[in-house]
């Protein structure tokens, strides 16, 4: 076992890795990359038919840390969904594993996030959600909680955009939420998402160890006289351990963040009916009210046709059609010209 274990394709887990992470040690995003590696390895997925799609952000860098044999596309900020749409339409055999951030999908990219869901493009849409802009140094994103404080961004007075509620509003066919430190749940949800035919929205709370720490926290080491200076100076960033957690369905679990603050995770139990859109909304709304984070598969609707179907794509991927099938014969041009007004 261990190092030498191979999957159905005869590949080792090592073969599903890629470059070493350049994210901060302890960043939740790294745990998620690991889960992607585990799941794709275990499911013996063919990397050459996976595309790794992302926008811009720490989270969006993640595809550089897994599945080295898959093509990847690091698009512009917030607009990965459109690029993925084009790619999957061009070649329907491609399985898109997309990674985005909360800023990427909740701020600049909210429109594309909603519209790709509406089209039900087959893709796994992972959001590595930390409530801040990691890569630009800690400003609040739209998913930051109202009342949240950080030493870099101050105090957030606006309500959070809940990306699961947003997905639901946009008629998503698969909506799930998890926590980066919950390896087991993340893996289970990723497997379900990979099995889903349509847009599978997986919102994973993934703490930013660097910019989510509180000014008031006793654990943080502060020196500059103002935060701007620290930022300009690319301050000192502590290395941290990744947070890990495991707990049972139906239960709630408080988890301590690196800065000493707590969040409460609540795992959906068997009583939750993930096919009921109204109760999915209720569950999310109530968690918001109670300042809990509800995790699990929140909503699922396997029946709605995907964009592959509504676009009437043939079985053969468009890119594999031969020239004869995409350039009509000279006689067809004659026919078309006959339909025009000619001398």
């Amino acid at each position, binding site marked *: 076992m261990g190092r030498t274990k191979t999957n159905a394709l005869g590949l080792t887990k090592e073969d599903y890795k890629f470059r070493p992470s350049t994210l901060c040690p302890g960043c939740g995003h790294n745990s998620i990359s690991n889960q992607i590696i585990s799941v794709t390895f275990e499911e013996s997925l063919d990397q050459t038919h996976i595309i790794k799609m992302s926008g811009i952000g720490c989270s969006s860098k993640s595809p550089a840390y897994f599945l080295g044999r898959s093509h990847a596309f690091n698009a512009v900020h917030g607009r990965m969904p459109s690029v993925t749409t084009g790619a999957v339409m*061009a070649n329907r055999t491609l399985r898109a594993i997309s990674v985005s951030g909360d800023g990427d999908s909740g701020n600049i990219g909210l429109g594309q996030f909603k519209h790709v869901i509406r089209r039900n493009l087959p893709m796994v849409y992972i959001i590595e959600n930390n409530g801040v802009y990691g890569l630009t140094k800690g400003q609040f994103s739209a998913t930051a909680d109202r009342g949240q404080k950080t030493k870099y961004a101050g105090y957030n007075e606006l309500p959070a955009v809940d990306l699961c509620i947003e997905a639901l509003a946009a008629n998503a066919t698969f909506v799930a939420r998890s926590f980066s430190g919950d390896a087991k749940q993340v893996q289970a949800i990723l497997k379900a998402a990979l099995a889903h035919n349509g847009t599978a929205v997986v919102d994973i709370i993934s703490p930013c160890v660097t910019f989510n720490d509180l000014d008031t926290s006793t654990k943080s080491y502060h020196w500059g006289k103002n935060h701007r200076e620290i930022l300009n100076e690319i301050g000192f960033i502590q290395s941290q351990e990744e947070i890990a957690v495991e707990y049972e369905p139906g239960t709630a679990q408080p988890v301590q963040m690196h800065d000493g603050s707590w969040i409460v995770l609540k795992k959906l139990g068997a009583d939750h009916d993930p096919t009921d859109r109204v109760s999915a909304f209720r569950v999310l709304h109530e968690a918001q009210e109670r300042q809990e984070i509800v995790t699990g598969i929140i909503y699922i609707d396997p029946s709605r046709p995907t964009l592959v179907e509504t676009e009437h794509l043939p079985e053969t991927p468009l890119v594999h059609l031969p020239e004869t099938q995409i350039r009509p014969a000279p006689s067809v041009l004659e026919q078309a010209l006959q339909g025009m007004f000619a001398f």
Partner: protein
Amino acid sequence: MTVVDLQRVPSSAPQTNGKVVNNFSFVVATANGTGSQTSNNTLIRTLFKMGIPVNGKNLFPSNIKGEPTWYYMRLSKDGYLAHRPVAEVLVAFNERTFAQDVAKLPPGGVLIYPIDDTDARAPKWNVQTIKRDDIYIYRMPVDTLMNQLPEKPNPSIREYLANMVYVGVMAYLFNIDMDGIRDALSYHFGGKEKLINLNFGLVQMSYDWAAENLKKEDPYVCEPMEGTFPEGTLLTDGNSAGGLGAVFGGVQFVSWYPITPSSSLAESAQEYLGKYRVNEDGSHTYSVIQAEDELAAIGMAIGAGWAGARAMTGTSGPGISLMAEFVGLAYYAEIPVVIWDVQRVGPSTGLPTRTSQGDLLFAYTLGHGDTHHIVLLPKDPTECFEFGWRAFDYAEQFQTPVFVLSDLDIGMNMHITERFQYPDQPMNRGKVLDAKALSEFIEKHGKWGRYWDVDGDGIPYRTLPGTDHPMAAYFTRGTGHDEFAAYSEDAEVFERNLTRIARKFQTVRKSLPAPVLHSMDGASIGIISYGSNDPAIEETRDYLAAQDIKSDYLRIKALPLHADVEAFIQRFDRVYVVENNFDGQMTQIIRMELPHLAARLKKVCRLNGLPLDADWITEQIVKAEKES
């Protein structure tokens, strides 16, 4: 009311020596959304079938119904197909613009307008109140004629049908072929007899009424001409042509967002695709997606281009602005994609339903940082068709965005244009390695890198996602990268990559369509222009020659500039660059790129929403020549 004053001849008009045959213009003034386009298209089609060189320019408002619209049709026995802003014959169907329309008529011109005061369109004044006594006037009893239709038309379409009355009256007055009108209506209604009969019936009735009640007094007439157009010459619009061209270019993916005047490009592509590219089982050999906006439209096309599909989007100015960031990514990550810009008047929302060439410089350098793109400049629907397919070859061959800069005039007006030719080359899919080719490449070169130039032409080899080979994958990004697509912030790597892309553009420069030279013996000046200005330039050169100013004319078909442009300018002290924009953007580009010749270039540019006309251009050049 009693039908009095059905017509009037001018008391003080310039003398014409008998008839003016096929050498004058009509303008029909209506409100949009009233259906006059059917009548106008019928007229232009008929004139075309009579062998008369004719153009049609539709000046329509950015509105759906009720605002002023003018349709200009110019007949030119000499074959000039450029817009002419003056019209000798006015069909005044719009009360709101009546006074201004009448005022614009040249002395000796002809005014035709509806007489019935029960009709909303009928000016509420008598012929006596029209101040101008230097024009011919004919009046038509529109409502009266419609009331005589054998079957009462649905009241909702009376307004539409009224337009058929002027077709009949004009046919009589100007000798327009009635059989041709029937044929044109039959084409328009797709052979549906009931509709053809209803419409043609009214045309015929109006013709007969005119023949009985009006006396031809003005000098303007149409006469059939022989041998003017080769068989198969088309009368069509550039957007249909471009859409059809894309279909024959093997387009696989279209993403777009509606915007005038480009919408009909994507819509015609979609329509033709639906006709010619659907499999027997109903599945499509393409995908067309109406995106949520232009940012998404270009993103989708780039994604598809990356995955190996022939992908395009179409838009106009505001969309081009919104696409800037993504186009910069495609340039730098070297992804093929075709972008049509059917130009309208900017800045900003500007005049959405008027024509211009105002996006040239912006499209050419679209995106922050140092970027440049291939820009193709079709002159008419035929070239829209050709670039419609050829653009994909360039995009895939050079792995870069290709702009096709059409404009509202080409795109939405009907033009007499050469028959489209089937592509004369197989598709050029560029340097794409499939699994087998990749293995061979690696065998030969020891390794493969997405941005590694082994041929010295600046163009690297790419693989497509889904390629079944363990070494095929690479990471596409807009950030600095080395030959092997690895992220790099290294100064040398960065510079080397940009230098290689610059080398690629040297290859591009040599491969794009050469400019077209039109020479004249003893030419003393050069004229450079492009796109839809072409007919106006041809006409201008005749006018200039008549004033003893002989000119050679170079029509640029693409950016970056071909070497011929330099050679051409070198031959003249003064080269006039004629363009339909405010700043003289092609002049600016040539000055930027050929500084040693910059001083020879003279701007002849204007922007007012109308196609350029030969009189204005001639005037500018004559004035400048006098001053020089």
